[in-house]
């Protein structure tokens, strides 16, 4: 008796499994009926299809994938450039919407700073465009009440800000540095900038030029920077005055500022932007 028990168990088990299979098949047939109705009521009967009709249905399903071919537009010369410009423009649009005026970039302890000699100098042409520091003035124009030529002392008379922030290069590297200067927003108040203006454009001693959206220009961490590591800016780092906006990528931090214009229409975008880089590039 004992010897027969396992055999009986196995038999019972097998029967169960067979019953399971039958149930699964019933279920599958039911599913198939539903599916067939959804896919093509005319092409199939309950749960079978003629091979020719199947081929037809298959072909029709493949044709439904034609929207994928639209991506081929990116392979067409001429159109490719326009599409990528649109894509970059969309990214800039999204960037401007993601930018939060009140959200500050992370600031760091002095211990986190890279040493000054390890702060990279990424001049686009020359390290020193030969600015006459003695007679330097910042020429202010555009939608402002007080246009004119401003001295460094006038900028330095504004409340001084010192911040340890991350400088992020478009190439992918970053370095934590110490920057000092006046808030661009304070300077804009001083020159009586039109609050409805949309852009700030700057031109530099080395023919570099840049522009900022007003939201970034008014950000509390955006500086007219005249100090690095508590020392006056050196020539390689943009003496006597540069932009420092930690919420922007490196190439927006224009050096050797000569002119600053407040505008409603962006007529001069930026040196690298004109080569194909993103304009907004907010971090």
């Amino acid at each position, binding site marked *: 008796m004992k010897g027969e028990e396992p055999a009986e168990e196995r038999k019972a088990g097998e029967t169960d499994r067979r019953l399971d299979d039958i149930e699964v098949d019933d279920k599958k047939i039911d599913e198939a009926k539903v599916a067939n109705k959804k896919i093509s009521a005319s092409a199939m009967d309950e749960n079978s*299809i003629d091979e020719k009709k199947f081929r037809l249905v298959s072909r029709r399903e493949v044709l*439904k994938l034609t929207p994928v071919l639209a991506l081929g537009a990116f392979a067409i010369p001429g159109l490719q450039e326009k599409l990528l410009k649109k894509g*970059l423009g969309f990214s800039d649009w999204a960037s401007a919407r993601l930018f939060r005026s009140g959200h500050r970039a992370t600031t760091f302890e002095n211990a986190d700073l890279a040493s000054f000699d390890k702060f990279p100098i990424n001049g686009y042409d020359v390290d020193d465009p030969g600015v006459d520091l003695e007679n330097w003035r910042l020429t202010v124009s555009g939608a402002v009440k007080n246009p004119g030529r401003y001295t460094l002392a006038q900028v330095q008379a504004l409340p001084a800000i010192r911040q340890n922030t991350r400088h992020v290069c478009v190439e992918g590297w970053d370095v934590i540095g110490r920057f000092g200067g006046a808030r661009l927003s304070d300077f804009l108040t001083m020159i009586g900038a039109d609050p409805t203006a949309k852009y700030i454009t700057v031109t530099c001693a080395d023919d570099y030029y840049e522009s900022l959206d007003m939201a970034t220009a008014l950000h509390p961490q955006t500086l007219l920077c005249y100090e690095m590591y508590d020392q006056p800016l050196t020539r390689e780092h943009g003496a006597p005055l540069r932009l420092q906006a930690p919420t922007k990528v490196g190439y927006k931090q224009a050096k050797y500022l000569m002119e600053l214009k407040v505008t409603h229409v962006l007529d001069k975008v930026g040196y690298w932007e004109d080569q194909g880089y993103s304009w907004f590039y907010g971090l």
Partner: protein
Amino acid sequence: MSGAVIEIIREKGKDKVDDSDPIVIARAAYEHPLVVRLCHWINTVALFVMVGSGLQIFRAFPSFGAKIPQKDLLHWPKAFAIGGWLGGALQWHLTFMWIYIATGVLYLGYQIFSGNYRQVLFTHRDVPGVWPMVKHYFFFGPKPVVRESYNPLQKQAYTSAIGLGVLSVLTGLCIWKPIQFSWLAWTMGGFHYARIWHFAVMWAILFFVLGHLVMVILHGWNNFVSMLTGWKKDLGY
């Protein structure tokens, strides 16, 4: 809807054996709904562009440490990159990331709301079935009986791949917007690590793609066609 099996029949022809009944020449199941197929192929193109342009971007600073002194990890050949230069690569990357994200969101949304995710989502119930499949694929073990569209190992692979896709977007966001997504960058260990993770996730995805291609080739033409027509004729796996 998925997993529903139908019989493909031949009404008349040389092979016809019995006059009264049509013969069944194959069985097929509708496994890949249109949205899934569209997302699969658009995402394939987007992934190709994202990897190619991403490697071109990486060429601008092929390192993860300090800028000074810079220690380059690898010199990726320009021929296997997209964009020609950093600015061009960024245009491709910042354009196709939207297509990449859109197909991902559409796919996930469809899978969740249609319930189709059950076909492929790896859950605790699939855990016991993974090892037999591994034994079958890699150690000549017997072929386990699979009653579902996806076997447990496939579920694990595809669920992981979707997870990697999500991670690729999140790590990318932290590189693109480390300040606006500072909290997210913090979870990854900061901006530096986000860049490392982004790079690592890319290789993990490429590893998946390699395995995926090998399996598709091994499983044959019908398997490949199923991602085009939705209908899978070979129900063995």
